[in-house]
């Protein structure tokens, strides 16, 4: 099916021509079920599959031909990648392959925990601020203040207060991410409150908690899920940056940022120490971003229009 607009380009199916109109170009065949959904949204499938693979790698790291990632072997320092050491060894003779595989645990833990905790806290703050008039002003001014501190600096400042641990890294990045989620949820709540069906619910005597639960919450879920994937991606990047500059995960734990930080001094002569964690980090973040973009296109036409 082609529709001619001002241009006479053939239009691929599913492309939104005029966002303000209902989507005329529904995919030719609407497939049902999870498999059908994945076939309709290949980015979700690719991103999801990559992410699943990395989660499996993280979970089954001990069984994938790894050795103890913290085992020192000064005699085998800075070996180039070979059949024995697939990704080579670092300054202290530790096996980089094992460290990178175990490192995926840190990145995934931080990414997923921050996504979950920032979304939930942001959801709560956004709901309160959307429904409680007097709290709205105070909460949003406070969020504006937090938002005007660049997220990485905010996380760095918080990390400077505490000792480096994975828990503290998660906490610091969560605090830095909350303002954006709260803003988003508040916006959605404010627009949903004006919907006729919410008026109808109010008119028929539904109590506020019930309105939130039945009418508001389900409608915020799509944007929240999309936002959560983006937060996950950004949290993984921030974690690696924090570790890279020495304000993140303690150096005893192999995380991608830490491996890169240790390889930094030698990167001109032994670039592979930096290369492997960098490649894994980039692919992981790419997978999460693809997943987010795909979910956004699939679930949230309002946001798909925006970016």
């Amino acid at each position, binding site marked *: 099916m082609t529709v001619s607009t*001002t241009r006479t*380009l053939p*239009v*691929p199916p599913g*492309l939104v021509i*005029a*966002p303000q109109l209902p989507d005329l170009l529904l995919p030719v065949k609407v497939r049902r079920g999870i498999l059908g959904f994945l076939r309709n949204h290949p980015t979700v499938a690719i991103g999801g599959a990559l992410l699943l693979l990395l989660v499996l790698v993280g979970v089954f790291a001990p069984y994938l031909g790894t050795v103890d990632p913290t085992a020192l072997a000064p005699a085998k320092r800075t070996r180039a990648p070979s059949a024995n050491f697939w990704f080579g060894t670092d300054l202290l003779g530790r096996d980089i392959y094992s460290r990178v595989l175990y490192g995926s645990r840190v990145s995934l833990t931080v990414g997923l925990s921050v996504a979950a905790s920032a979304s939930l806290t942001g959801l709560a703050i956004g709901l309160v601020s959307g429904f409680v008039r007097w709290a709205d002003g105070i909460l949003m*001014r*406070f969020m*504006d*203040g*937090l938002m*005007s*501190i*660049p*997220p*990485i*600096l*905010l996380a*760095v*400042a918080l*990390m*400077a*207060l505490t000792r480096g641990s994975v828990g503290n890294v998660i906490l610091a990045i969560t605090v830095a991410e909350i303002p954006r989620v709260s803003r988003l949820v508040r916006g959605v709540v404010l627009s949903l409150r004006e919907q006729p069906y919410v008026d109808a619910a109010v008119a028929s005597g539904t109590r506020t908690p019930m309105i939130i639960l039945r009418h508001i919450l389900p409608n915020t879920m799509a944007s929240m899920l999309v936002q959560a994937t983006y937060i996950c*991606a950004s949290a993984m*990047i921030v974690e*690696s*940056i924090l570790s*890279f*500059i*020495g*304000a993140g995960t303690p150096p005893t734990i192999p995380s991608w940022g830490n491996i*890169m930080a240790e390889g*930094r001094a030698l*990167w*001109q002569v032994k*670039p592979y120490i*930096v*290369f492997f964690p*960098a490649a894994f*980090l*980039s692919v992981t*973040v*790419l997978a*999460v*971003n*693809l997943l987010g*973009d795909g979910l956004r296109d699939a679930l949230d036409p309002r946001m798909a*229009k*925006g*970016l």
Partner: protein
Amino acid sequence: MLSYILRRILSTLPVMAIVALFVFSLLYIAPGDPAAVIAGDQASPADVERIRQNLGLDRPFLVQFGTWVWHILHGDLGTSIFTSLPVSALIAQRIEPTLSLMVITLILTILIAVPLGVVAAWKAGSWVDRTIMGFAVFGFSVPVFVVGYVLAYVFALEFEWLPVQGYTPLAQGFWPWLQNLILPSVALGCVYIALIARITRASMLEVLQQDYIRTARAKGLGQRSILFIHALKNAAVPIVTVIGIGIALLIGGAVVTESVFAIPGLGRLTIDAILRRDYPVIQGIVLLFSFTYVLVNLMVDVTYTLVDPRIRY
């Protein structure tokens, strides 16, 4: 309009107050006793107590906050615990490389991202659009230090076209200065370019559906003048707003970029301060960056009200 501008300026005051309060609390709740640090290892408890009283550290939280704000308004950001130099002097020493890096990155980003976004919107749905947007996803996903190392490896180590690391002050000539900044600003700009290209495309797509674009096309205007004069001008508000908001990315990224390329700027100062837990320095930097960020965005908004007659509040 004047009342809008006034209100917009006034609305940044509470934001700045909250930033200041937050940053002050950082020092207030920071572990370690500044009085004990200043007194040194040999001091008796009485000495420490005297220093604490001299510094006013025994006074209530709000009084200390007030004094601190008073000093900041007079340009006094405190004294570094580690070097005993005024924080403002430390920042002044390091500001040139960071500022240079950011300005070059900003120029580079606008020069690259806006045309890319325009072309993507023009060719929406085609392979050109898909390629550009694919690169944008890529730019979002690859962390700044990864891009930095790859660029440095390829262009500095392999081809030897540009210096690997370091910084040359502008005073020593424009070309040496620029040469050192090219790779870092490309690395730093990656995420930013992706962001601006995306928002440009989205904003352009919206404008390209307007009636006046059809009119322009109907009266036979060339594609280029439609895109860059009629459409881009009207699509500019969201683009410029996001350029302003995206400066947060530049600030965060600069810290890392400077570390990769060994640029002695504020980022380097930040990292050193964190490693030494030099709280006054951290405080000063966070405060400086946040205020700059707030002011830049204020300027963007106010400029728009002045330039764009459609914006009326």
